[in-house]
């Protein structure tokens, strides 16, 4: 058991690092991660700690004379449930409701948890929101169904390709391509009328809304490196979607 073997002085550091890692992997803003880590360190009695967080890694130093610890972040998804759970633990730790060891155990539990919603439900949600967005962008009522179908299939394709190939750009590109082709097909068999509206609605689940917001919030909070790199990530996603749709337009 790693838990038991942990040296007494090491555990608080590990708790902070684990909390930061989970939050960053789940799509929290960089400044919030740093804030939470510092608060937890304070609550655990590590005064004078410093953390430096970028979207791809965390450097944490527990005290002036301690050596710094580093964690590399490879996968980043969006899982607000985990962000909120870590937030709760940090709050409880701060108010003294739980000890460091309990917090560590809870964090490990959170880390190994799966997403809050099963994949079919996520696809259904993507489909539903696509259909609604088609209407919100002033589509006709008959565009709802094709928007719903394209959005659902597109998001499913994104999840599938992301699992097959670990390159996010490729998954987004392919999903956008499939959405474009499918929407064109639907309009051809006159199941929908307005091609533009259907495509816009269907790509909305892939649009990097969270990334853009986080990028700007990080920039405003003075985390220039994180803000710029998140902005680059958002731009790359937008570019992938645009390129996928562009290919469809050059084909027809």
């Amino acid at each position, binding site marked *: 058991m790693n838990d038991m073997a942990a040296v007494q002085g090491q555990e608080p550091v590990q708790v902070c690092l684990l909390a930061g890692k989970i939050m960053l992997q*789940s*799509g*929290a*803003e960089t400044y*919030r991660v740093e804030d939470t880590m510092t608060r937890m360190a*304070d*609550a655990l009695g590590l005064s004078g700690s410093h953390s430096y967080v970028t979207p791809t890694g965390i450097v944490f130093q527990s005290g002036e004379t301690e050596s710094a610890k580093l964690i590399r972040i490879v996968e980043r998804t*969006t*899982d*607000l*449930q*985990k*962000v*909120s759970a870590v*937030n*709760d633990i940090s*709050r409880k730790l*701060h*108010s*003294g409701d739980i000890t460091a060891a309990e917090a560590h155990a809870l964090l490990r539990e959170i880390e190994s948890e799966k*997403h*809050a*919603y099963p994949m079919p*439900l*996520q696809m259904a*949600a*993507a489909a*539903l*929101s696509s259909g*609604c*967005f088609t*209407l*919100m*962008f002033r589509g006709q009522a008959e565009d709802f169904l094709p928007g719903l179908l394209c959005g659902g299939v597109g*998001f499913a394709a994104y999840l599938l390709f992301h699992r097959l190939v670990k390159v996010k750009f490729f998954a987004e590109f392919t999903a956008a391509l499939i959405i474009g082709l499918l929407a064109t097909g639907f309009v051809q068999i006159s199941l929908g009328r307005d091609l*533009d509206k259907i*495509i*816009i609605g269907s*790509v*909305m*689940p892939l*649009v990097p*809304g*969270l990334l*853009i*917001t*986080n990028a*700007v*919030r990080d920039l*405003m909070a003075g985390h220039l490196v994180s803000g710029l790199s998140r902005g680059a990530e958002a731009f790359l996603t*937008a570019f992938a979607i*645009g390129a996928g*749709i*562009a290919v469809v*337009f*050059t084909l027809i």
Partner: protein
Amino acid sequence: MYILVHLLISFIASGAFGILFNAPKRTLLQCGLSGMLGWLVYILLEPRMESVFSTVAATFLVGVLSQLFARVYKKPVIIFSVAGIIPLVPGGLAYDAMRRFVENEYNLAVELAAKAFLLSGSIAIGLVLSEVLGQLLIRRIPRQTRKRTAKP
């Protein structure tokens, strides 16, 4: 009637986005609500005013609501604000810009892209404004709900 339909679909769309972002089950309703009210402000203002201004106003409301929800339900602000601003993201404009680029109409494309960029900027401004307002208010009204123990 038009507004009612838009209220309903924006509520559903924002709530569904909450599911996509794995927001906790108990917050989905609030996610939908903030998205709905933001979109309501946007569609009411948009025909009369500049779209940049209406986006700022709508995101400001979304931000204020998210801060409120975050206080009441003790959850991070990001859960509510992200789902709320999703309807306001200029996806349509960005798409149009991309399409013009492919059709070799570069002038129009750059114009549309600039507009989309401005709108994303105004979303950010709205959010930051609401955050600043929230911080100012919190400094005035001391928090009673949260125990402040080991804070220097």
